């Protein structure tokens, strides 16, 4: 009889440390002989650096070295290498690191950094993505044509276009001509921050033999290792990157973060270990945040409310450097339409340079952004057609047999989006009405938003797993998934326990990632960890089972195929009382006379994304998506018509995740994502003054959802198996954020009977919309 571990709410193995405050993060770790760095950042959004006087800082007590951009004036990055570790000749955003002090103590470094004198000449700055395309806009990267980039990215030198991804599918012009209904809308929202609990930090050391050791709050230790090797001309094998569990990533710790800077800091002081820790303000603006967007959306529909075409222009505000953002704009093109059947599509997705803090991956990776504009547009279209917006979504929901924007087929693994829509409508009591008056001041309003997401990652993205055994027969799963709070490691333990039919407390897992000892893994991003590392773990388990059987077959003198592994034993399937314990096999079997055979069991597993292909640069045709998670979300709000404030009372989400490996963890992950999506829409985003300086670079002013401001959350799952997923599972880590901004904005638009087309949804913005709406009338 097989025991089931998958599908159960197993408590997470790191839970106790975290709730008791015992979890050690990078800044808690002790290093001998450590030096500390402090960074001077730019007070301007765009300026020429005329002169940097470091003399006084160099003479400050405890100071070992003061560095400026000319120490390593080379641009680097992951997808588009456009950013030097310290600004060279120009600063391009408020908060850009300009100089660094290395000193014996943090206080010495902080004191000295105040003594650096920089002379700037202010330059005109680019304040929005639309503005960046204007003729008179300054070109922010004169050297764009010389930057390294991956082939899938198409920068346009002598412009501010860091990437342009085009999708041409069907015949949009024809659809537009024949359309019965057309809506044409513009949307925008600013860039902002992830606000992870733990600020970024890194410690770099170069040992006497040239070995480079980096500790970093990274989601992508192998990316860091490979980029350091490439950019600093170090043999990859000489670099070891260690990623301890981190206090929240949300995409902000993927790619290259402080590691390159930490490396040159250490190099400049003869390889001594140097630590750099972001202050909260630095983490918000100096390090990258989430992308901003302006968009034009045209949707056409026929008499029966079928969407016949979309014409989309996405203008992403990547800020001053577009390294990772170029792939965000590409991801948004791949999924441009949202989860709707759209046979005729034009989409131009631009990644644009502006003088804002720069953007990197953010939970949802282009999808939370596009979903906001699409879901708002769907509601506007529903009003135009005069149809219930939920019904419009049901009519047009993508399903098996349809094709994606890149013309790849939604195959047998396609989730049941209509079931998700119906379930969410039920959870939010959609039938009670999208807007209901309570009294003269208050209304209840509801809004829905759909989601879909696929990972937009390199076609050869991989994961690995190694299983080793202990002398009590228990196993260790060596994996390279970074613990970022998501709980994947617990789910991986469940998968191994299920495959080996072994109690969970016998399945151990490594918590930090070490690129020297762990198997290669692309990155802990794109909600692909469970799917890919899960497949690798299954693979490794099967390999270990085969090896256990091989040794056991010799001892039991029976064919390998007659054996079963379960309950920490290898036994004959038809005669289970003939067995050997795993603990007597796993480190080699020893006969009574002392002879030993077999040796230790080491299970090896790997997984590489299958059948992914690049996109055609003219039409976007291709297969860039590993799998699609579909879902429907909704909110219910109580809106105060007197002061335009509102309370979010209820938030609901139904997603088709293929198979729920751990229900409590899955619900936790989705609930957290929903909260983040609501916070993103309700109050987040940078506010800029006329000089493009960020006005809210502190948590006092950058408001995230607080404890008492949360609604009640309702989370349900539909399980249409993902054929190639572990036990049928597909990704669910990020997806819960995606539909929330659209759902909330739809509810508010319903409450005030005005179409809100911006974010964040602060009361004053809603008030202005209502006032202007009335003026138009």
């Amino acid at each position, binding site marked *: 009889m097989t025991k089931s571990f998958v599908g159960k709410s197993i408590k997470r193995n790191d839970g106790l440390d975290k709730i008791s405050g015992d979890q050690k993060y990078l800044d808690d770790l002790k290093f001998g002989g450590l030096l500390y760095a402090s960074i001077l950042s730019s007070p301007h959004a765009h300026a020429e650096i005329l002169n940097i006087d470091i003399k006084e800082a160099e003479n400050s007590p405890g100071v070992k070295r003061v560095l400026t951009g000319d120490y390593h004036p080379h641009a680097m990055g992951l997808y588009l290498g456009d950013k030097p570790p310290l600004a060279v000749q120009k600063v391009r955003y408020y908060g850009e690191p300009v100089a660094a002090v290395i000193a014996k103590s*943090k*206080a010495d470094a*902080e*004191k000295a950094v*105040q003594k650096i004198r920089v002379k700037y000449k202010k330059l005109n700055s680019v304040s929005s993505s639309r503005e960046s395309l204007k003729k008179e806009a300054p070109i922010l990267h004169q050297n764009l044509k010389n930057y390294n980039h991956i082939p899938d990215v198409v920068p346009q030198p002598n412009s501010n276009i860091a990437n342009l991804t085009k999708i041409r599918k069907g015949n949009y012009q024809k659809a537009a001509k024949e359309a019965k209904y057309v809506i044409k809308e513009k949307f925008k929202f600013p860039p902002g921050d992830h606000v992870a609990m733990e600020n970024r930090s890194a410690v770099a050391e170069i040992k006497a033999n040239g070995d480079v050791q980096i500790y970093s709050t990274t989601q992508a230790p192998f990316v860091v290792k490979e980029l350091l090797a490439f950019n600093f001309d170090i043999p990859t094998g000489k670099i070891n990157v260690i990623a301890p569990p981190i206090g929240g990533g949300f995409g902000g710790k993927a790619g290259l973060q402080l590691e390159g800077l930490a490396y040159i800091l250490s190099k400049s002081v003869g390889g001594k270990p140097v630590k750099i820790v972001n202050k909260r*303000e630095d983490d918000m603006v100096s390090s990258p945040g989430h992308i901003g967007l302006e968009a034009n959306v045209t949707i056409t529909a026929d008499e029966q409310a079928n969407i016949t075409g979309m014409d989309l222009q996405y203008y992403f505000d990547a800020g001053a450097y577009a390294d990772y953002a170029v792939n965000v704009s590409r991801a948004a093109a791949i999924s441009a339409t949202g989860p709707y059947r759209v046979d005729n599509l034009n989409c131009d997705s631009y990644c644009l340079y502006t003088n804002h803090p720069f953007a990197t991956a953010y939970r949802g990776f282009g999808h939370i952004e596009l979903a906001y504009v699409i879901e708002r547009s769907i509601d506007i279209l529903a009003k135009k057609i005069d149809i219930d917006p939920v019904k419009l979504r049901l009519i047009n929901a993508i399903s098996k047999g349809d094709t994606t924007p890149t013309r790849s087929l939604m195959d047998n693994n396609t989730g049941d989006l209509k079931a998700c829509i119906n379930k969410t409508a039920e959870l939010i009591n959609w039938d009670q009405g999208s807007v209901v008056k309570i009294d003269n001041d208050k209304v209840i309003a509801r809004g829905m938003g759909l989601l879909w997401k696929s990972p937009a990652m390199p076609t050869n993205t991989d994961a690995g797993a190694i299983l080793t055994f202990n002398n009590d027969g228990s196993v260790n799963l060596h994996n390279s998934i970074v613990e970022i709070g998501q709980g994947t490691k617990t789910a991986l333990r469940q998968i191994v326990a299920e495959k080996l039919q072994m109690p969970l407390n016998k399945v151990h897992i490594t918590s930090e990632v070490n690129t020297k000892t762990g198997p290669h893994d692309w990155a802990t991003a794109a909600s692909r960890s469970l799917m890919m590392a899960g497949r690798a773990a299954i693979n490794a388990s099967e390999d270990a089972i085969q090896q256990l059987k091989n040794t056991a077959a010799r001892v039991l003198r029976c064919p390998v195929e007659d054996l079963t592994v379960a309950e920490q034993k290898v036994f004959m399937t038809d005669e289970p009382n003939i067995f050997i314990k795993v603990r007597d096999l796993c480190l080699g079997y020893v006969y009574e006379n002392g002879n030993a055979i077999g040796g230790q069991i080491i299970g090896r597993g790997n997984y590489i994304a299958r059948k992914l292909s690049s996109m055609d640069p003219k039409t976007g045709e291709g297969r860039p998506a590993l799998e699609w998670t579909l879902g429907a979300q909704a909110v219910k709000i109580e809106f105060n018509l*007197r*002061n335009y*404030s509102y309370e979010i009372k209820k938030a609901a989400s139904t997603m088709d995740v293929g198979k729920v490996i751990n229900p409590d963890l899955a619900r936790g992950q989705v609930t957290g994502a929903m909260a983040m999506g609501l916070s993103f829409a*309700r*109050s987040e985003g940078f*506010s800029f003054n006329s000089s493009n300086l960020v*006005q*809210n670079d502190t948590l006092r*002013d950058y*408001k995230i959802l*607080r404890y*008492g*401001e949360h609604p009640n959350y309702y989370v349900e799952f539909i399980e249409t198996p993902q054929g190639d997923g572990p036990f049928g599972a597909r990704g669910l880590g990020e997806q819960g954020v995606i539909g929330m901004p659209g759902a909330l904005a739809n509810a508010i638009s319903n409450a005030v009977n005005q179409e809100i087309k911006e974010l964040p949804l*602060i*009361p*004053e913005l809603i*008030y*202005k919309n209502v*006032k202007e709406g009335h003026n138009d009338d």
Partner: protein
Amino acid sequence: MISFDFDYYRAENAKEALHKYLELSEQNQNVLYYNGGTEIVTYARKNKIKFSALIDIQNIPECSVLKSNEKQIIIGSSVPLNMIIEKNYFPLLSNSCRGIADHTTRNQITIGGNLAGKLPYKEAVLSLLVANANLKVMTQNGITIKKITQLFDKRLQLKPEDILLQIHIDKGVIDLPYFQIREVKQSEIDYPIMHLVALKQNDKIKTSLSSLCAFPFRDKDLETIINDNKLTRLEKIDQVVNNLPVPISSNYRGGKDYKEMLFRNSLNSCLDQLGSEI
């Protein structure tokens, strides 16, 4: 972290604190009195204030008094806001302090700090202005007691070395009808964009305002309009808006139009509740 060095002194009585202040100032030191420390710490961390010496006044006995006798309520300047709210001797004061920062921070913020700090909101002053509270101040010429309405103009008009010791509130005001409303940009835990307080005494409404304009104030001319029963409600509100001592301010938290709308609504609710007209 605070990266610069400074000297720290703790005074056991008001005289000692004042003398230390004068002595250090004569040595060209940049001196600040230290009370709850919430502003000093957060500004110093970002190098937005500089000082070479701090004099902690929290051990001065008068400063930590919180009591109510037959005639008045006495509140020492070092009393944290949460203690004032919990004791609740003067509900209007409690309510107008409850929105300041968050609960954890209100354990640390003192009423003296709120009145004398750098931040422009000074919400604790609103109820003290309408209650006509007295302030007990240590000066070079000894202890003085003056009406807050004489000492407060945009901010507390004290000499740098003066120490606000206590606030005295006449008990006659604590049960009077009042109105209080605090509007924020969005999150409740935020600086206000408009805070209106009103108290009705002898059939007259007294009002004070914070955050609508650049500084908090109580304005007699506005009160004359509010209490002029020949005017209709709308005329009163229009005239008040048109006669503000300074224009409504616009900033990152709220624009002029939106704040004016909130203020009009709030004033209307205030007049509904305290009913100044027939």
